[in-house]
């Protein structure tokens, strides 16, 4: 008996010893992590949200989505097809999906969502835009839905994201105007639930264990708002937080070389540009003068100075957007600029006003560099720096005359990038002639009949190869022949994190896949 006991103890000891290294090899992970960014969400109602998709996608799902590589894949839809009429799209819905409150997802949720989005009597932020191409949403059966477009629509699938997150009909009814403003009123089918939201401070998320894509890797995480860039940098350097975005380019280089910290840069759909006021109320109505400005600038120099590591743009779209074509970066050519100015009747130069805003990273500095470069060919720039509210107020609802009277900018800074990652979203709304001749969508009052024709054709065409050809032709005009603006750089989304972070990935539109992230202890 005693011998047996000895043996048992001995073997247990051996097993214990053998087991010990195994247990050590298995990394222990934190139950929660902190992600830091500069701005809070305005609202978690997708139909009124103008912040970004980064947070919405943690909570909600849409019929389709984009994966980390930018491909359109099913989210709440498993299969989809278009009928012979080219306007009726049928979606098979995922079964067994539940909302955070436990209620089931089915065709009625989709119907309620689109009824709200398409209700022109009680319009949301995105109603006018969406009702412009979707005319009906019909329930076929509990797990099949039809969306009908006004005409064949080439960019249709790419549009079914953003504001199209599927909402819960009961929650919508219960909260009415307050929907999406408090944690209780946020009820989606995404991987995380919002459990606390202190405005402009933090948002706390908890894993939704029943998420159809599998339970998230970490139980909870917090998005903390730190508006000051230097404070964000110090927070990540001191490991008070695990991941940070919106870090300035100069800090990225330094942080990338630090021990214990890694930098992930993902090329985005975004670009910086200086757009022209092409209306007849501006001297830049003359395309030759716009070309002159364009050729007078040294983009490489500006980008290397302000955005080290970024690439100067090569088209009116980022390479990450469908429809992109590489025209090459426009090279500085001061002689050509002067010749164009002389041809337009301004051989000795002219004066323009450029509006910039610190809303865009290094926006003001960009204006200063542009001013000094344009001075070299005799273009005298009056630089106006404005805050965000003035910037936004200057874009929308104004005729060229009103715009000239109130603001009088000949060029203005702009950050562009279609959340749909499709050329239609990136070009059509912004550059097609506005029927009312206001700058609600077409901020620079741009108008070119050929561009209108091409961009409308690109929208209707459903053959994606043909669309590429159409957009190439349109961009030749927008970029070079009758330019809309001066594209500066293709932007990266940069994320700085502790090297203990595993499984980090993010999409081209800035969506972070938080449900895959684990942080070692």
């Amino acid at each position, binding site marked *: 008996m005693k011998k047996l006991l000895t043996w048992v103890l001995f073997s247990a000891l051996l097993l214990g010893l053998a087991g010990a290294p195994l247990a050590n090899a298995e990394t222990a992970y934190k139950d929660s992590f902190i992600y830091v960014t500069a701005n809070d969400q305005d609202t978690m109602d997708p139909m009124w949200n103008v912040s970004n998709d980064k947070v919405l996608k943690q909570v909600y799902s849409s019929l389709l989505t984009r994966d980390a590589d930018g491909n359109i894949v099913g989210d709440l839809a498993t299969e989809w097809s278009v009928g012979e009429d080219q306007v009726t799209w049928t979606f098979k819905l995922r079964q067994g999906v539940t909302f955070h409150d436990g209620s089931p997802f089915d065709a009625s949720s989709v119907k309620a969502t689109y009824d709200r989005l398409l209700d022109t009597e009680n319009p*949301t932020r995105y109603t006018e835009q969406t009702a412009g191409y979707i005319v009906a949403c019909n329930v076929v059966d509990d797990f099949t839905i039809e969306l009908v477009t006004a005409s064949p629509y080439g960019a249709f699938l790419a549009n079914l994201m953003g504001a199209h997150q599927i909402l819960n009909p009961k929650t919508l009814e219960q909260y009415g105007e307050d929907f999406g403003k408090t944690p209780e009123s946020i009820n989606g089918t995404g991987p995380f639930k919002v459990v606390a939201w202190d405005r402009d401070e933090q948002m706390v998320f908890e894993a939704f264990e029943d998420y159809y894509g599998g339970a998230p890797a970490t139980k909870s995480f917090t998005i903390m708002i730190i508006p000051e860039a230097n404070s964000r940098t*110090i927070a990540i350097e001191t490991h008070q937080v695990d991941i940070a975005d919106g870090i300035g380019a100069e800090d990225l280089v330094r942080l990338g070389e630090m021990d214990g910290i890694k930098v992930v840069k993902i090329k985005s759909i975004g670009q910086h540009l200086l757009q022209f006021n092409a209306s007849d109320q501006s001297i830049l109505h003359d395309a030759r003068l716009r070309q002159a400005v364009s050729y007078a600038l040294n983009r490489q120099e500006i980008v290397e100075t302000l955005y080290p590591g970024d690439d100067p743009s090569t088209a009116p779209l980022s390479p990450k957007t469908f429809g992109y074509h590489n025209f090459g970066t426009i090279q500085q050519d001061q002689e050509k600029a002067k010749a164009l100015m002389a041809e337009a009747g301004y051989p000795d130069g002219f004066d323009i006003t450029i509006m910039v805003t610190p809303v865009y990273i290094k926006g003001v500095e960009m204006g200063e560099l542009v001013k000094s470069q344009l001075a070299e060919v005799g273009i005298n720039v009056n630089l106006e720096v404005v805050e965000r509210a003035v910037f936004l107020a200057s874009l929308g609802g104004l005729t060229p005359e009103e715009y000239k009277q109130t603001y009088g900018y000949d060029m203005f800074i702009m950050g562009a990038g279609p959340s749909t990652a499709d050329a239609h979203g990136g070009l059509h709304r912004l550059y097609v002639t506005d029927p009312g001749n206001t700058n609600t969508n077409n901020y620079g009052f741009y108008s070119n009949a050929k561009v209108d024709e091409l961009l409308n054709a690109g929208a209707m065409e459903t053959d994606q190869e043909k669309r590429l050809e159409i957009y190439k032709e349109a961009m030749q005009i927008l970029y070079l022949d009758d330019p809309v603006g001066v594209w500066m750089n293709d932007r990266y989304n940069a994320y700085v994190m502790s090297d203990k972070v595993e499984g980090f990935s993010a999409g081209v539109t800035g969506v972070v896949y938080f449900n895959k992230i684990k942080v070692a202890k």
Partner: protein
Amino acid sequence: MKYLLKRLLQLIPLLLVLTFVIFLSIRAVPGDPVEVMLGMGAPENAKAAERARLGLDKPFIVQYFTFLGNVVRGDLGTSMSTGNKVMYEIVRRFPNTLILALGGTLVAALFGIALGVVAAVRQNKFTDNAIMVLSLLSVSTPSFFLALLLMLLFSLYLGWLPSIGMRSWQHAILPIVTLGTQAMGMVARTTRSSMLDVLSQDYIRTSRSRGVSERVIVYIHALKNALIPVVTVLGLRFGGLLAGATLVETVFTIPGLGRLMVDGVLKRDYPVVQGTMLVFAVSFVVVNTVVDLIYGMIDPRIKYE
């Protein structure tokens, strides 16, 4: 008591004028809350719907009297950007602001008065000059810059103190030191000159001739009489800090009243701007009244009727 009542009654016309000016001026600057909320390319129909929901489509004067009526009932309105009650947003942040204001003023008072007294006693000696240079540095260093320096030193290099948020007493140290250091110089300079003034008075000379110890003369007789201008400076500073220390709050990511108001202005969130300004005005007047009462305690000759 009567005096206090009078002061509070004086507040009413002041607030009426103030609310009107704020109400008018925030609406006079370009940009409105709906433009900011709905962003670029927002359709006119959505903007109109939003303006109607927020009551911005009504005439200015109607909006003003609605606001005034609500204030009388103790309702500062609802934030246009968050949908939360303005009162809730203020109450939520007030403890942080109070901690910063009290802490900052206390640090400034302790160090400022001590340095000022030492400088006065050692007038024109090395210690005096050193303290005056230090004071000049403290007054002229922008709080933003000082905050970043302290963060670099104590959070990044030494790793002793946290640099973001306000979740424990350790979090309060760096912001309080920043605010205190800034005000310290002013307090030291005021204390010094006031002390010098008092020390040259006849009664001090008399005390000296009577053989009262220098320590008692400086710390009991002189200091007490030199404190009135110092209390004024501290009171103004404290009142100012109650209106939030925006830059310090921003750098240390502390949700306080200063950031609330600046965010409100940037977002053109009218009710937030109106509400916070009202609270600032009231607290400033209250602090000033308290300072006046303290004068009476320091110098019994000062009486209010």
